[in-house]
């Protein structure tokens, strides 16, 4: 341990030395920094490429961040051509002369040019499609999310995530996503830097992140860097759009599942913008019963953001988000043999009603120095979540978490792609729960826990940019308990020159800990209700080790491939003891585990088939295995989906497009029953003729059997008409075209099976003012 601490200290010291020496060196050169924005809307563009070209000299460049900001440091004095490009915009070129010590500020505006699709664009798309995965990281933009259709007219991050190999959804309701073997509570979801605890809606097509508010999303299915702490499986880091600073625009849509309204515009033109989004489910009223199936689901979200450019160096934003969900997960019940349940058209006798709400609000301040190559970011806010199971108003169990966050991040640009990241986060969480005896050791609990993380991370390139490394260290501490964990992490990318840099090899490794965990009981319908509890002071803290190795490349123009293998080692988990009492109570037991798998992805980018007719799509396959081991038992938990395939084909011609999406998943594990009997506390003085017994379910070996496979084909047709600033979109489609009876849940106690959505048509219209 001492040796480990010395090594870590040495690493930190080395990083600081590098920071000092390179800061001295940077003064010998010039630097260029500024913003890239849409010339029509003024909205800053994330991911735009800025390059400084000089004949015979290495290319210098950068890409804009979430605020459209870029910085290029350590630029040798000379005359350059500044070239700015972004998908869907006309490339901008400007001459630029730099002297030693110059710090040049530029506001660069790009003009939209949606028709421009040349070879360069095609290659650029390969960097953002489903095959653009780098050691577990996929960077998503709104356009990618919109590619995956769903009931309604806008896209949603939740629908996209379900197509990502390695992410297992328990069904089309419940909003539960398991990422590469991790459990639900191990996923970290962030909106503008603030956590949101249950971000997915009760119908799993939808989340708190509609495509219309998303500027960009970093999705880490593992191997995330030192900047992220407190969770040990995955990260969904969503950056919300800032809104239009030039003029008002918006959109409204209606479909039987969901209606949406988005308005954005300048409060102070060019400086302050506002973006608001409201979504409200309609399905409960519009189609309470369709094709014999009930849809007792009510959900929605409200989002608002104000963004202000105080000056060229200072910007501030305030974000607020509220989501709500309520419904009966067992709303589409059938008997186990598939026949309709008698209670299907009325209120079922055993309610599986669940509900949850999230509220997130906070602010973000960004400072970009004009004097040193530094970006400082401060984030502060509050995140609240409450979930319950049982009738509204008289729930059987409740659990909530409310946390206050304050975070600071510093990015120091050393030029040549060398950057240093330094920061930390303080979080104080209040947890309360009433479990009604669900878990024997935890009944009613109110607790507060303070978490502090600090990180130091750097990224740099070797071999003329062919190799980039990102080592870092996150220190995670609980001040109240005097506990501290060191979490070294590293990410690496290699694009060998001998393969023309069209092939990318990547790897990631890291250690992760988590002190606030969510407990789920497999016996709940859909396993939705999550009890958030701090790990007991004397108990070992859950830990994960991630290792990822991947490759991606373009095999022929327009066709890219990716393959990635992962291994996650999990320890100190808490899982319920498998009790034989039906629906009574259970104890918790420690468990370790591991998950391993392989993802394969193939993507075809816009491929012209004939005049004005293009085809694109992708197919992905995931092989994985998740194993939990308790003291007495080794088993594969309920989210161990061994095989998963998703194929999406999108064809378009002019204003009309069609999309077909097919998902296949091998059966999830479940615990079979040997039936019911009665148990007596049978001592030699028991009177067997009078002693009442207790009914017990005769569980088979836990999770030893597999459910039927899951398959669903969705087909969508869309017509999009543009008339000046107005864009109308009509989308019609069918979910589960073959009306396949995909199992969602089976209730061993009531013998009722709950199927996922049957054949469900959807029609929606959206009118957008751009």
């Amino acid at each position, binding site marked *: 341990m001492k040796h480990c601490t010395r090594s870590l200290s040495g690493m930190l010291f080395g990083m600081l030395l590098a920071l000092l020496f390179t800061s001295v060196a940077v003064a010998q050169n010039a630097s260029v920094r500024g913003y890239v924005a849409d010339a029509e809307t003024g909205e800053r563009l994330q991911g735009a490429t800025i390059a400084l070209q000089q004949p015979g000299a290495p290319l210098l460049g950068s890409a804009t961040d979430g605020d459209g900001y870029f910085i290029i440091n350590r630029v040798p004095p000379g005359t350059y051509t500044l070239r700015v490009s972004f998908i869907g915009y006309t490339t901008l070129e400007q001459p630029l002369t730099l002297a030693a010590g110059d710090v040049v500020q530029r506001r660069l505006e790009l003009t939209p040019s949606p028709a421009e699709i040349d070879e360069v664009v095609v290659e650029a798309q390969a960097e953002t499609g489903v095959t653009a995965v780098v050691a577990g990281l996929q960077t998503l933009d709104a356009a990618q999310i919109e590619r995956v259709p769903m009931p309604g007219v806008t896209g949603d991050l939740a629908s996209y995530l379900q197509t990502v190999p390695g992410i297992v959804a328990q069904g089309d309701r419940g909003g539960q996503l398991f990422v590469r073997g991790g459990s639900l509570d191990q996923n970290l979801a962030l909106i503008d830097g603030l956590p949101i605890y249950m971000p997915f809606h009760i119908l799993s097509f939808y989340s708190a992140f509609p495509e219309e508010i998303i500027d960009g999303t970093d999705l880490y299915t593992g191997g995330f860097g030192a900047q992220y702490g407190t969770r040990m499986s995955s990260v969904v880091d969503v950056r919300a759009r800032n809104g239009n600073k030039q003029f008002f625009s918006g959109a409204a849509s209606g479909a039987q599942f969901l209606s949406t309204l988005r308005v954005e515009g300048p409060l102070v033109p060019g400086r302050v913008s506002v973006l608001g989004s409201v979504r409200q489910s309609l399905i409960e009223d519009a189609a309470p019963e369709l094709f014999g199936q009930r849809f007792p689901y009510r959900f929605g979200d409200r989002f608002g953001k104000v963004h202000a450019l105080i000056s060229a160096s200072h910007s501030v934003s305030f974000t607020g988000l509220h989501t709500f969900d309520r419904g009966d997960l067992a709303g589409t019940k059938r008997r*186990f043999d598939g026949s309709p349940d008698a209670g299907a058209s009325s209120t079922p006798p055993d309610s599986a009603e669940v509900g949850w709400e999230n509220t997130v609000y906070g602010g973000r301040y960004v400072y970009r120095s004009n004097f040193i190559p530094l970006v400082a970011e401060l984030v502060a806010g509050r995140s609240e979540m409450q979930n319950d199971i049982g009738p509204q108003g008289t729930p059987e169990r409740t659990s909530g978490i409310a946390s206050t966050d304050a975070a600071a991040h510093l990015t120091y640009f050393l030029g040549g792609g060398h950057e240093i990241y330094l920061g930390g986060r303080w979080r104080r969480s209040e947890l309360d729960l009433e479990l009604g005896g669900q878990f024997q050791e935890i009944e009613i609990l109110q607790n507060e826990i303070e978490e502090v993380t600090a990180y130091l991370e750097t990224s740099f390139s070797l071999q003329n940019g062919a190799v980039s490394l990102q080592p870092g260290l996150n220190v995670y501490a609980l001040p109240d308990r005097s506990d501290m964990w060191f979490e070294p992490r590293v990410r690496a990318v290699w694009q060998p020159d001998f393969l023309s840099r069209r092939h990318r090899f990547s790897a990631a490794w890291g250690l992760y800990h988590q002190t606030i965990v969510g407990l789920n009981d497999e016996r709940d319908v859909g396993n939705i209700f999550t009890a958030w509890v701090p790990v007991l002071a004397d108990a070992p803290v859950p830990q994960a080790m991630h290792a990822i190795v991947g490759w991606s490349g373009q095999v022929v123009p327009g066709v890219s491939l990716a393959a990635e293998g992962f291994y996650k080692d999990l320890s100190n988990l808490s899982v319920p003891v498998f009790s034989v009492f039906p629906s009574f109570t259970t104890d918790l037991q420690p468990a370790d585990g591991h998950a391993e798998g392989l993802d394969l992805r193939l993507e075809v980018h816009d491929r012209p088939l004939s005049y004005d007719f293009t085809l694109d799509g992708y*197919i992905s396959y995931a092989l994985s295995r998740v194993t939990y081991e308790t003291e007495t038992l080794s088993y594969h938990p309920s989210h161990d989906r061994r095989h998963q395939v998703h194929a999406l084909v999108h064809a378009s011609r002019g204003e009309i497009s069609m999309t077909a999406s097919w998902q296949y998943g091998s059966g999830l594990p*479940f615990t079979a029953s040997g*039936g*019911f009997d009665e148990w007596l506390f049978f001592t030699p003085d028991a009177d*067997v003729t009078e002693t*009442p017994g207790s009914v017990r379910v005769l569980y088979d070996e836990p999770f030893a059997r597999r459910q039927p496979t899951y398959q*669903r*084909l969705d087909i969508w047709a869309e017509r999009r008409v543009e008339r000046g600033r107005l864009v109308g979109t009509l989308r019609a489609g069918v979910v589960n075209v073959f009306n396949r009876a995909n*199992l969602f849940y089976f209730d061993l106690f009531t013998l009722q099976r709950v199927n996922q959505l049957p054949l469900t048509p959807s029609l929606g219209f959206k009118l957008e003012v751009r």
Partner: protein
Amino acid sequence: MNRWLLFLVLASVAAGCSGDTFIDPFDNDQRYFTLYGYLDELTQQHQLRVIPIQRTADDIVIPSEEQTLNATVRTIDLATGQEYAWRYRLEPLADNTFAHIFESSFPIRQERTYRLEIERSDGVVTWAETTVPSTRTFPTVERSAVVDENGVISQEVIVPGASRPWGINVVYYLAEDLCNHPAVKVPYERVATRVSEGQWGFTINLSDDSPGVQARGINDFFCNPDFLPLRFMGIEYRQLDAQWDLNADVLDPADFTQPDAQSNVVNGYGFFGSMAYYIDRFDVTQELSDQLGFPRCALANGSCDE
């Protein structure tokens, strides 16, 4: 590309049409009944509770007419081949549920093995065997010397045996002619503590017992308190058959809930055991009787027997 598209369409159609959606959550074709009962050497009347394993809990606790037990129960003495039939009745219980009860009457013998069979109407059989333990061949109970520590008089007792003794009583035999030599039983350990492998122990607290014993002699047997000497004592318990070893020193109901815990039933769950009776009587010295405050004389023919 068109071929790929065609392949995808055909694959999805084939997959979508496949009927692999049925799930039978039950995985049980070998276990038919759960049963609870035992054979007691002290009685010829035996009872058995039988629970047919069902797919729904309701069928267990409130059986409809179809769920009344369609089975026959018999016991076979494997030493003699003698077969005994059991009679069925549906018994309403205090909590408004029902119990399937079988009763039979036959004597049991120590060291004999009895096989209980429950045969369903379709011929499947759940069965269990129990061998009634022998108490005749057991080593006798070991008692340490009586100890008087600060006025607390006690005696350590070691009970030998492979399985745990159950229902231990210390018996105080009072010698009062007019009330027919009453025997007062003081219940001790319900389950004795394991001292070592094959040995179970407990401590008799004679000081604590004696006032109660005398009071019960007076109240329960109408003895004259002035003439109630203690002449003998005894230790009695039920010897459980070897399969009925209650593992934990402290009985934990959670241990019993596990279907296969504490079970000797083949093709089913539950337990069918047997028990024998053991008693060891021994003299009480005059000195000990005095120490415990019992009178020396008993009323015999109107005179005090010194």
